[in-house]
């Protein structure tokens, strides 16, 4: 393919529009810009929180004040003015939603447009959804059906009101407030998110999913997810995210904590499609997320599967602490960057229990002028016998203006550990494209085939209902970028 032709196609791709970039015009209840102890007290009061929550927030805030934004990531981030952000904004609607009719029609229309109908009849019958817009949960479906099994699936705020003892017991136990700068900030100001509790011996009868949407301007989104799986239980959970197109950057700093007990299993899947900014690199979401699970019990299992195509900047390392003997964790990730997107992402596997096993499969796809880094840590503590890890980090480049980097870290404290690391870098060649063309396959379809083939191992780990979506998303975010 001639150089000009390649450039033309590259341009076309980069112009492929972000489909979720609209804004919903609804009245918001916000508290103005800026952050202080008063602001935190105000958030806590608005949410009518028990005293322990306010204390948790204030402690986190005071600690955050002593911290600095991390600079070790392979990212260029302009300075963020934390006083210029609105920390609480919620769509104004009736205090308590009794039925679908109580949801603001504008909000319903928004989620219909996003392909997430809030109407239970219209939903996939085996997926329950919690929908979070800006700082608050709008609606959770199938709550009743789940409650019959003893499963709790509700917004974080509702959980604070209805199950304060569970929240107090588990919140901050996996990601402590001092953990890192963004975790401390989230702990101070988080407004909503999802809470999942699966009782002992229960296999959650449906997929659970939370759909995050940023809508309001100048706000940050700080949500928290807490998943607790008792002995011998199972749940598959998925989160999805989108945001409007705006010229200014918006901050998203979330925390996910997962606790997996004896013989329990959690699958946590993410389809992250926050607004990535325009093709010149203007606007987009700063996605600074701390996700961590602990395999607390013996033979506990935690699987992370993620397809990441959005955000201007991504800073995210879903991690597992393998504490229970025989516990295991897998991390499967496809991260796509295009245009000026930057991602520094990967995983951490901390082996503590004996005979613990972890797998990391990371597939980076870079196009345009983007930068895509894998950063991963495998740590085996001194008394951990028989740990095993296999890591594979592959990079696929489309075009020659993008960059891919790999930063694997190993801290092996016990000689019995077996740790393997493999890394490859490949490029979609114009000879591959031509070969496809010659068989009647267009360049766009050829890229789709190659990228989906490359990401197959990860996509196959997503719940079936979302695998197809994830596949489409990959093709859309890369259409035409050949090099």
């Amino acid at each position, binding site marked *: 393919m001639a150089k000009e032709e390649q450039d033309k196609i590259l341009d076309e791709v980069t112009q492929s529009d972000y489909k979720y970039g609209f804004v919903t015009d609804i009245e918001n209840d916000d508290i103005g810009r800026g952050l202080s102890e008063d602001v935190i007290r105000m958030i806590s009061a608005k949410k009518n929180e028990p005293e322990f929550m306010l204390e948790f927030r204030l402690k986190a805030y005071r600690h955050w004040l002593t911290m600095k934004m991390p600079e070790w990531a392979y990212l260029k981030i302009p300075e963020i003015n934390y006083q210029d952000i609105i920390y609480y904004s919620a769509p104004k609607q009736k205090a308590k939603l009794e039925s679908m009719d109580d949801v603001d029609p504008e909000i319903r229309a928004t989620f219909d447009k996003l392909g997430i109908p809030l109407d239970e009849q219209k939903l996939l019958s085996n997926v329950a959804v919690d929908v979070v817009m800006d700082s608050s949960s709008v609606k959770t479906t199938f709550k009743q059906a789940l409650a019959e099994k003893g499963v709790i699936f509700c917004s974080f705020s509702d959980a604070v009101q209805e199950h304060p003892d569970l929240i107090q017991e588990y919140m901050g136990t996996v990601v402590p407030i001092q953990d890192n700068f963004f975790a401390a900030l989230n702990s101070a100001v988080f407004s909503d998110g999802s809470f999942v509790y699966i009782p002992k011996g229960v296999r959650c009868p449906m997929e659970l999913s939370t759909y995050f949407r940023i809508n309001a301007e100048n706000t940050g989104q700080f949500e928290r997810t807490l998943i607790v799986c008792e002995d011998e239980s199972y749940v598959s959970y998925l989160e999805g995210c989108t945001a409007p197109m705006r010229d200014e950057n918006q901050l998203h700093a979330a925390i996910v904590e997962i606790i997996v007990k004896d013989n329990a299993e959690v699958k946590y899947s993410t389809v992250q499609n926050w607004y990535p900014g325009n093709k010149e690199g203007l606007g987009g979401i700063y996605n600074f997320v701390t996700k961590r699970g602990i395999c607390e019990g013996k033979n506990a299992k935690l699987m992370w599967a993620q397809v990441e195509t959005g955000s201007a900047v991504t800073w995210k390392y879903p991690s597992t602490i393998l504490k229970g003997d025989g516990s295991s964790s897998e991390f499967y990730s496809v991260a796509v960057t295009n245009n000026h997107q930057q991602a520094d992402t990967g995983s951490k596997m901390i082996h503590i229990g004996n005979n613990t096993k972890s797998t990391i499969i990371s597939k980076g796809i870079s196009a345009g002028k983007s930068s895509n880094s894998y950063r991963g840590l495998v740590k085996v503590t001194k008394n951990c016998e028989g740990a095993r890890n296999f890591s594979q980090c592959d990079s696929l480049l489309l075009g020659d203006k993008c960059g891919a980097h790999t930063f694997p870290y190993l801290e092996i404290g016990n000689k019995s550990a077996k740790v393997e690391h493999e890394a490859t870098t490949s490029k979609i060649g114009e*000879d*591959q494209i031509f*070969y496809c063309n*010659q*068989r009647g*396959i*267009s360049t766009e379809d050829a890229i789709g*085939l*190659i990228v989906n*083939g490359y990401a197959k191992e990860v996509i196959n780990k997503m719940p079936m209902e979302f695998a197809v979506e994830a596949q489409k998303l990959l093709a859309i975010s890369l259409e035409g970028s050949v090099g």
Partner: protein
Amino acid sequence: MLSIKNLHVSIDGKEILKGINLEIKPGEVHAIMGPNGAGKSTLASVLAGRDLYEVTEGEITFQGKNILDMAPEDRAKEGIFLGFQYPIEIPGVSTVNFMKTAVNEHRKHKGLDPLTASDFLKLMRDKKALVEIDSKLTNRSVNEGFSGGEKKKNEIFQMAMLEPKLAVLDETDSGLDIDALRIVANGVNKLKTADNSTIVITHYQRLLDYIIPDVVHVLFDGRIVKTAGKELALELEEKGYDWIKEENGK
């Protein structure tokens, strides 16, 4: 079927094809022979629409249509198939998925619905038998880790799947042992009809014992310098290319 008139082709400003004329009628098999570097693969690539090459002069019509402005995938769907001299590996893309996409694109072009999964698998089975290709190969990613001979067989398998009007087979014989050569040649012969045409590019006579050409051309230094019946291939086999070079002042 195919008409090439005064075709001149350059790459990076260097002229490689220097006025090719070629007429191929439905049902005909043409062999193009010639020494290394003569321009055989260039001609094949230009027919398939590879844009590394610049057509500076001349025309190509295929079934009455000028194809020079047609995208490679459209030429393919019109019925031009290129068996690559060096088939490309596409890791991660299963042969099944690749062929399903290709077959259905061809069907769409003809206004047909995509094949159902079971019809497609049946088609695969039939064509696999035709070219005696092992399922072990078609179950893998496209050409990934195939030997040279396996890649060539896979080209003929794909040709069988797509049933082109004009197949251009670029040195499909090289890298094949005698058994594989027979299988590949048989495959090509079985796919022959009165309506489709084949261009067999080779520089050994060997293949032409199995695929009997109607016409043999000698391509030398970017020009067709000799055209005759199948006996020309034997003559080349016997005498080599030196006499051609001498006749053409090189």
